[in-house]
């Protein structure tokens, strides 16, 4: 049995279980309502008088702060609570395949949610002449950021059998990842610390690395950042699960 077969079997099961529950549809509706609200009302889409999705993407780091942990919190904590972890890890599958399969399924679910926001692209294209390349870069960045958030949630959900604890832990970690590069915070920090230090801290922030994508720039360092966060958090998930099993 190839790794691909195992990963896709796990991913299919996970995705089916998302859509088997009404929570998935509720989530999609909430996601779309919130993006709509933030873009058009809080983001002052119309008042900006420019054909871009800046007011759409600028909220994503904050929106995902709550929505992504909500999607990912059950990934491993539920397996631990229900005891299916024991089933999964006594089937002939390597742990990394199970971890990747479950991660990819939830990421795909987030991608579907993000994809369903396509009416905003239509809207700006009807209203003006936006730079669609920039929009595409924004979507790519947003998807990668969602993946990074999700991987962190994956890790926290492996730490506990309680979904709520996993949710809170991941919101706290993600908040750090946001605030480290959030301009009001960095502006405060430079008063006490050297700019070099503040820059170093900011280099670990999703804000810093999402910024380029929003401006339509796909920088390999930003790509690398999000992919490393995903890689690191999934690796940590594996270590946590192994330690949990060892008792």
């Amino acid at each position, binding site marked *: *049995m190839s790794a691909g*077969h*195992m990963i896709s*079997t796990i991913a299919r*099961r996970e995705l*089916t*279980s998302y859509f*088997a*529950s009404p929570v998935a549809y509720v989530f999609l509706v909430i996601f779309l309502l919130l993006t709509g609200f933030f873009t058009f009302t809080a983001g002052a889409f119309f008042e900006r008088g420019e054909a871009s999705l800046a007011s759409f993407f600028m909220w994503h780091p904050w929106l995902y702060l709550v929505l992504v942990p909500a999607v990912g919190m059950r990934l491993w904590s539920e397996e631990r609570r*229900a*005891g*299916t972890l*024991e*089933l999964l*890890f*006594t*089937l*002939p*599958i*390597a742990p990394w395949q199970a971890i990747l399969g479950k991660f990819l399924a939830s990421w795909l679910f987030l991608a579907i949610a993000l994809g369903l926001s396509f009416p905003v692209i239509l809207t700006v294209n009807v209203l003006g002449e936006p730079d669609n390349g920039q929009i595409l870069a924004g979507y790519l960045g947003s998807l990668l950021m969602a993946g990074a958030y999700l991987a962190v949630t994956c890790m926290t959900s492996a730490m506990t059998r309680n979904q709520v604890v996993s949710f809170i832990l991941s919101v706290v970690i993600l908040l750090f990842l946001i605030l480290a590069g959030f301009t009001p915070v960095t502006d405060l920090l430079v008063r006490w610390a050297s700019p070099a230090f503040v820059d170093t801290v900011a280099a670990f922030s999703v804000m810093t690395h999402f910024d380029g994508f929003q401006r339509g720039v796909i920088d390999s360092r930003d790509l690398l950042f999000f992919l490393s966060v995903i890689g690191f958090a999934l690796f940590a998930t594996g270590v946590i699960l192994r330690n949990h*099993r*060892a*008792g």
Partner: protein
Amino acid sequence: MIRIENLAKTFGAKRAVDGVSFAVERGEVLGFLGPNGAGKSTTMRMITGFIPPTEGTVRVGAHDVVESPLQAKRLIGYLPEAAPSYPDMTVEGFLSFAADMRGLAGDTKKRAIGRVVERCFLASVIHQSIDTLSKGYRHRTCLAQALIHDPEVLILDEPTDGLDPNQKHEVRNLIRELGASKAIVFSTHILEEVDAACSRAIIIDRGKIVANGTPAELRAMSVFAGAVTLQASGADTETMTAKLAALDGVARVEAVDGALRAYPRDSSASGRLVRTVVELAAREGWQLDGLRTEEGQLDEVFRRITLPDTVKAPSR
């Protein structure tokens, strides 16, 4: 098929499994007995590769479970104690998932699902969501998952727990039947199951094996084994007790429910004991109304060797 050597597991300061060794061959059904917390589940989790041993080795088929976990796991079907399954799936969906994970596809998969559905009596609930099933059905759904790839090794942690008496009976029959061609280990604390399904039994207590043998051998360890119980008339109880106790080979005599039970002095005396008693009755002119040799009671053996010493001795 299963070879366990010096297996140990430590949780913090607690030694849950402490130097367990045994082997199970194809065609054997090993009953794994022991009080709660004895270390049965922990041992089974190490055999199935769910938790790594602190010490010792487990080999399943030709594979070391720690060194080549995937090869070992392919040979094993496992029913965990909690019989977990994914509640949001239907029985069919769950079994189909298990079959996919075992690399079954197409017709082979369809036949495998049909076979376990029949074996585990799941036909009536096949399209039902697992969270709507009663405990017995959920349990058998997980058992079906363990059988889906017709494994050579079956590890079943309390497979009859939570089932009603009919279901218990069916599952025991199933285990005995499967045992003809597989190596099976199943844990239980129901002693009748040892007779109903096992070819051999191990009793484990506080992480250590305290007895290992066929059901008959275990029963022979009972203090009752070889004792002769008789109901007789023709003399008063005191006289009979005294005469029985005076017999060569009798250790002591006890009154039980209107009958007398003579215990053999040692196992070599037990074979001849019934004849000695019959001869005594004939000599004394007692009329025998009932006479039997005790086989020994498993639950007595179990209690005697697994109770802490402080509980065993009557308190003063």
